[in-house]
């Protein structure tokens, strides 16, 4: 096996040059990795639009102190092979200093392990929810603005028990998202004295879930908890359950909070439907994001739209705070996202830039939560329970 000598020489040079040039010479490049093709293609447009909205706002407000942010989209296909390929291009050809995404957990695990962590590139995912990402040996380079499934599942269990729901059946889509939520929910619900009559996973993209529902209904519970996506099999399962009256009350997690679901099933049929979803601790942040998003033609309630916006905006803030030094990005991200500091709401780029220039601390309060990153780069997330009212989702109660 022989290599051209020039290649080896160039690589030696690369190693030498790479160790010396940590700054990203007056260029702030961000790669946006989304599942444009593949199984979550339906969610990708809103996610990417939110990311672009954030970065466009930054650029319109003057960009960073060392230039405008240049961004480019890449397709991670929600698949490990495609995502590593995209990440390699993003890091090496495009020259990204940070990326939003990959979108799916499996794709993210492969891409960060084999490309971005060794290359020292900051990754903030807005939709990869697997608890496995917490365990990554990531040199503090992998963050996410979406909470691990563990938090939400447990919060939902406590909330339901507090509302007097003691018996439920659980249906989850058999992927890392559904299963992670369902297991966390089950652990907390049973430990706190609730009873789970049926606990079943289902594959997505099936035409009928009536046999699954018949099984789920067998335990005699009145409430069905669905961990699935409201624009995919979650919609089918909910529709068929309502049509056939299998249960009296339905509860979903953030994946089920889909505006189209209300249009498709009709508000009248969703009186007994509750969903949990992450919210900012100050409701103002989400409001502000909603207005900006609506103006830009993006549905703010689309799945992962808010987290995607926050991920991109946080990266921009971190770049500003790190003053263009790539190696300081993770520290800077922690500094701008967590307390203490002057609160910054979505879109308040000029204010943040001014404060940073004055050497003051800032604390970004995002559309999808406060983003107080823990040691592993995870966010605890704050949640609220929503019901359907007036064609949209209305907050009923905060979840603890």
């Amino acid at each position, binding site marked *: *096996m022989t*290599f051209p000598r020039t*290649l*080896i020489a*160039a*690589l030696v*040079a*690369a*190693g030498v*040059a*790479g160790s010396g040039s940590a700054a990203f010479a007056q260029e702030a490049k961000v790669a946006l990795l989304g599942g*444009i*093709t593949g199984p979550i293609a339906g969610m990708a*447009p809103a996610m*990417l639009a939110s990311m672009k909205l954030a970065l466009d706002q930054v650029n319109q407000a003057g960009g960073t102190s060392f230039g405008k942010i240049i961004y*480019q*989209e*890449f*397709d991670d*296909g*929600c*698949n*490990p*092979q*495609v995502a*590593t*390929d*995209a990440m*390699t*291009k993003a*890091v*090496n*050809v*495009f*020259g990204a200093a940070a990326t939003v995404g990959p979108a*799916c*957990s*499996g*794709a993210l*695990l*492969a891409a960060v*392990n*084999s*490309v971005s962590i*060794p*290359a*020292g590139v900051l990754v903030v995912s807005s939709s990869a929810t*697997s*608890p*496995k990402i917490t*365990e*990554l*040996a990531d040199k503090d380079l992998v963050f996410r603005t979406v909470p691990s499934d563990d938090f939400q599942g447990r919060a939902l269990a406590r909330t339901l028990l507090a509302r007097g729901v003691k018996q439920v059946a659980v249906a989850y889509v*058999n*992927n*890392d998202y559904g*299963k*992670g939520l369902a297991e966390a929910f089950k652990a907390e619900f049973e430990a706190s004295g609730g009873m789970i009559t049926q606990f079943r*996973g289902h594959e997505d993209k099936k035409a009928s879930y009536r046999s699954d529902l018949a099984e789920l209904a067998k335990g005699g519970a009145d409430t069905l908890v669905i961990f699935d996506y409201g624009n995919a099999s979650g919609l089918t399962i909910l529709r068929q359950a309502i049509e056939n009256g299998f249960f009296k009350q339905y509860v979903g997690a953030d994946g089920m909070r889909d505006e189209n679901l209300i249009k498709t099933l009709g508000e009248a049929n969703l009186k007994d439907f509750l969903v949990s979803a992450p919210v900012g601790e100050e409701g103002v942040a989400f409001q502000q994001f909603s207005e900006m998003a609506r103006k830009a033609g993006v549905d703010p309630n689309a799945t992962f739209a808010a987290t995607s916006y926050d991920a991109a905006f946080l990266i921009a803030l971190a770049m500003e705070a790190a003053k263009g030094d790539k190696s300081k990005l993770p520290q800077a991200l922690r500094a701008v996202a967590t307390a203490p500091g002057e609160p910054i709401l979505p879109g308040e780029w000029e204010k943040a830039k001014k404060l940073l220039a004055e050497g003051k601390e800032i604390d970004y309060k995002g559309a999808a939560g406060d983003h107080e990153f823990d040691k592993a780069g995870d966010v605890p997330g704050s949640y609220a329970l929503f019901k359907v009212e007036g064609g949209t989702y209305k907050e009923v109660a905060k979840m603890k």
Partner: protein
Amino acid sequence: MDTVGLLNYAIFMGVLIGIYALLTLGLNVQWGYAGLFNAGVAGFFAVGAYLSALLTAPPAPDRIMGWQLPTAVGWLGAMVAAAAIAWPIGKVTLRFRSDYLAIATIGIAEVIRLVLRTEDTLSGGVRGITQVPRPFGDLPYEWSQLIYLALTWALVLLVFWGLERQLTAPWGRMMRAIRENETAAAAMGKHVAARRLEAFVLGSAIMGLAGAVYVHFMRAITPEAIDPMMVTFLVWIMLILGGSGNNRGALLGTLLIWVIWSASELLTDRLPAEVATQAKYVRVFVIGLLLQLVLRWRPEGILPEPAGR
């Protein structure tokens, strides 16, 4: 876009092309030599990948194994496991003729995929296995990539050399005789069923090796990685385009398809932002179109099987 970045990208592509080259070579043994239509490449790839991960990764509380053995053991184990799975499957299904065999192997690959998805204690379920070690993975990024490229291509060339020898040996001639005219070969006293099984097991073992090389490169495996579109069908396209029955053709097809698949995104990104996102679907389309064109105008592939060796 600087030279160093482009080189890093080229090295990455080199490794993935090497992994796919192993898959195409494995499929070439089955389809090119023996005429066995295996549409379950992903299944053997998965067996190899998961077993190598289980042998070399650190243990996890909710999953079996995690023995932290050296990578070489993982690679060997992957080949043995893929062969061990292929043997009984071949024993049962090789009596089917081509299209029935294809249906059977698709089914088996799906069974393997669903088992790996749902059996948490075996495979980590939908969350997969992480922290799989990579040989020399602690070196700086460029060096670690370069060494892995060398390792991958050393394996590819070793397999290539071995298969070339096998093809020109009496065994290879016999395989082609069986493929061309089974009845005549049987009449000459060749044990058709046993020879076919050999080719099936050998090809599957090479696919298992490809899975193992893949998992140590990515350092993680989740069920999405064994998507039939990305493994089985892409590999078939590579082989058909390059020329089945010719190992050089298999390598060429792999190179062409992967470069088109990966590098076309760089081209579509040059388009205006409004269409760039939609244009990402173009590469899926281009691959399909290419296959249609090749099948129409050059069904034997770019480098066809040499006549009489």
